[in-house]
């Protein structure tokens, strides 16, 4: 915290979501919440697939066949994005709860690190799914 600066930059006097620029940590945090909600909504789908895959040979083969469809793969990609983002952002929160990297510059660096790792993992998943 810089206490010697007598005149901090003027704060915006509006709440225009299109003009406000969120810091990277805020984007990460909103994404953590959104991805968590999406994962919650997808839970019954996941449990259904898990149950069916264990329901005999036909069930297992049926689940495998399902993933041949491009539409199912698209849904899978979105679901995996939610999982990857929620997992990485969540691990970052756990590390910060231990008291590590709590200063603003460090927090911004780790938020960027999450997004970079996430981008690389999603790129690899995209290649695997195409």
């Amino acid at each position: 915290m810089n206490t010697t600066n007598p005149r901090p930059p003027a704060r915006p006097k509006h709440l225009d979501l299109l003009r406000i620029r969120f810091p990277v940590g805020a984007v990460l945090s909103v994404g953590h919440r959104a991805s968590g909600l999406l994962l919650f909504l997808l839970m019954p789908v996941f449990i259904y697939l898990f149950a069916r895959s264990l329901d005999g040979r036909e069930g297992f083969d049926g689940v495998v066949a399902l993933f041949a469809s491009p539409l199912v793969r698209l849904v899978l990609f979105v679901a995996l994005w939610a999982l990857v983002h929620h997992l990485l952002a969540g691990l970052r929160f756990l590390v910060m709860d231990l008291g590590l990297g709590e200063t603003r510059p460090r927090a911004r660096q780790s938020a960027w690190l999450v997004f970079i790792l996430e981008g690389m993992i999603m790129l690899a998943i995209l290649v695997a799914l195409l």
Partner: protein
Amino acid sequence: MTRVLTGLRAWVVQRISGAYLAAFIFYVLLAMAAAPPRDYTAWAAWMGAPAMVVATGLFFVALLYHAWVGVRDVILDYVHPLAARAAVLGLVLAALLAQGIWVAAVLAEVTAWP
């Protein structure tokens, strides 16, 4: 820990369950990468091992609790009228409990009892 107006317990549970969820997911990914189950027999045998059933059961308990705390936080942030809040919370809780019973039945079915 007092139960009066404190979020500390939920906060702690959210972090412990989150850590277990992450560890379990990494373990499953590694195991799948090392020896992917090619057919139903291999998959059911891997899932049915008693240790795996216990670990998976624990995973779903942690998942349901983690989802409950997280979704409850979102509901408390955005749904303010008391009746609507109670209704949505009740719906979420019922959905989570139903899914818990569903998973318990699946796991009981697949277990290779020793």
